[in-house]
């Protein structure tokens, strides 16, 4: 799962630690490609949080769903029913809907996140007066659906993770009167073990890291193309180490320069950032970008695609990152890290200061609590 799920999980735990009674209503799925039921349905606990899982069901009309998907991605506007059919066709969780219908009144606030899935588009209308929408918007075709606009307008409260996401929402639709940029946070590791990480994974050469889903929407193909061009043109010493979910499609010409470590245990992730010479964020679809925060915390410089307003905003505010516009500029950034590691480390330290000043859980939870006061 992605950043929004991680933010929700940590926020839920943080609020529970502050004395709130927190239930998480979620699916039995682990993989957002298959939405297959991998966790058992029913009630479990995650620390002080009660987790209620409901099974997903999937549509058999793949052709119809694919047609709608293609129309959305090509920028065509679907009518309301087609939009619902698209949303309903990926996966649906009717038992979650029914549970929430019956128990909505027991919750002072119901937080929905992210914006794109059935769980939000179908369920946010059950009790709009208690609904807090944390959309995690990206400037992508799905964000322009009418049902997304309706969710933004009808929620009682909307939480944004960054100012560019907030501005994007206003370009998309009228936004509920009570909305604010509450930000997000990442847990600060107590220590890092970069040498141990290199040794455990047999990483002998310097590397730049990509952490995230290996898929088109996250800029994977562009990264492959840009990294390939950069290492050939500038004779760079770096490998590209990649961690995360999704099949890592690697061009044959780059096979000796890409190290795919797949899904890392959570405890290993901070070390992966700390051991890297740079972290590359090629995704244009970011509403917050936890990974750049994790990189900066590990004092690793960030090289990010300027196609993301959010990441560009973070880099400009912090001074801790290099932003590239195209493959050539990506090569220049990598070359800078290879040739001026001290200056790169200096940038990274500015990034760490930025995270510590703005994105620690206590201040984010304070902002959430202030916002929830409107509902409680």
């Amino acid at each position, binding site marked *: 799962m992605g950043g929004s799920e991680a933010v929700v999980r940590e926020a839920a735990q943080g609020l529970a630690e502050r004395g709130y009674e927190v239930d998480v209503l979620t699916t039995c799925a682990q993989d957002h490609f298959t939405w297959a039921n991998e966790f058992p349905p029913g009630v479990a606990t995650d620390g002080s949080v009660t987790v209620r899982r409901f099974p997903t*069901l999937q549509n058999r009309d793949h052709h119809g769903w694919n047609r709608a998907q293609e129309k959305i991605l090509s920028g065509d506007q679907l009518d*309301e*029913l087609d939009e*619902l*059919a698209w949303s*309903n066709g990926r996966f*649906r969780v*009717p*038992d979650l*809907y*029914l*549970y929430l*219908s*019956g128990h*909505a*009144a027991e919750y002072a606030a119901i937080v929905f996140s992210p914006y794109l899935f059935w769980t939000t588009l*179908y369920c946010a*209308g059950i*009790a*709009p*007066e208690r609904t807090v929408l944390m959309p995690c918007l990206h400037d992508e075709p799905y964000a322009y659906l009418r049902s997304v606009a309706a969710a933004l*307008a*009808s929620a*009682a409260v909307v939480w944004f993770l960054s100012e560019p996401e907030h501005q994007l929402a206003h370009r998309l639709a009228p936004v*509920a*009167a*009570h909305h604010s940029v509450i930000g997000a946070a990442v847990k600060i590791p107590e220590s890092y073990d970069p040498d141990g990480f290199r040794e455990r994974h047999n990483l002998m050469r310097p590397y730049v890291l990509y952490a995230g889903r290996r898929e088109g929407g996250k800029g994977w193909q562009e990264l492959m193309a840009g990294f390939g061009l950069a290492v050939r043109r500038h004779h760079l010493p770096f490998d590209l180490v990649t961690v995360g979910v999704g099949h890592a499609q690697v061009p044959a010409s780059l096979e000796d320069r890409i190290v795919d470590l797949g899904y890392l245990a959570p405890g290993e992730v901070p070390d992966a950032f700390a051991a890297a010479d740079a972290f590359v964020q090629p995704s244009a679809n970011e509403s917050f970008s936890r990974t750049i925060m994790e990189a900066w915390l590990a004092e690793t410089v960030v090289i990010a695609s300027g196609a993301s307003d959010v990441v560009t905003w973070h880099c400009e505010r912090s001074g801790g990152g290099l932003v590239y516009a195209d493959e050539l500029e990506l090569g220049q950034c990598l070359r800078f890290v290879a040739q001026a590691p001290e200056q790169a480390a200096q940038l990274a330290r500015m990034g760490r200061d930025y995270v510590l000043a703005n994105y620690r859980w206590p201040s984010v939870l304070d902002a959430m609590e202030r916002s929830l006061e*409107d509902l409680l």
Partner: protein
Amino acid sequence: MPWSARSRTSCEIERAAEPRAWQVAAVRILVVGSLPPSESARAEALRVEVVGLLAEGHTVEVVALDPVATAHRYLTMGGIPGCVRVATLVSGFDSVVVQLQPGLPVRERAGSLERNLSLVALSFALRRGRQVVIRLERLDDLPGGAGGRAALFLWRSAERIVVGGDDQRAAFFAAVGRPAEGMVIGSSREHDVHEVDADDLGWGEGTDTSAENVLELVRKRAARERRQLAASESAHFAGWDRLPASGTAFTELDSAVSQSPHGPRTPGDLARSALAVADRRPLLRPAVRVVRAGFRSARALLQPDRSD
């Protein structure tokens, strides 16, 4: 006493004020009908019914004709094929609740023969099940109305018929009479439009200016919502008769928030009036949201002075 064990002759034709008292044992129930997100009174009424059944501890599986309704499974076709599909499903359940709608069992453009065959097909399908409840939120949800011999055959396949309110119940009796000795013709559970105490919205005694601004905001949003509601109603149900009904409802809403028997009203008074009207009208569920949103917006804008 489980209703299946209840003697029919002991039942009276009455408004079932406590429908939840019928059943004591948790059972598996098949619900055939369309739940939200369709913004229709029919879908909302069924949602309330299903939530009530779940609260009683029953296990519910929902099968919908509407392909975007919230459901576990879908009927790929309505009309007679849909009835055949229902027939294959009902035997696995302890009880069946069927909400009639245009398309199930009768297609909207069905002629007289097809209508009769569809009604008989559903009757036979339901006779394979147990503890059958037929819900007819509005009589015009059944193309051709509730009367006629084929429809009577359908009504007699149910142990209980639920209609969408006292007016619909009266209309049902006018069209059908008493379908079977002792059959219960009940009204829907109360629509679960969450009640909100206007005072909980955080208003103190506002100024007249605040009230006027709030009123204007509500009117504006209600007008927009009315247009959207009209459009969606016509698209979804071809229920042209609902358009004037929705118009009337909104007029009533507007009147409630604008007419003041006691001089200038506080925003809290306005909210209370608007929500009271909206709660009485299933058609106005979207408006409830509008009103709440309006007051939230206004509250943010106006910040009534609590010191007055």
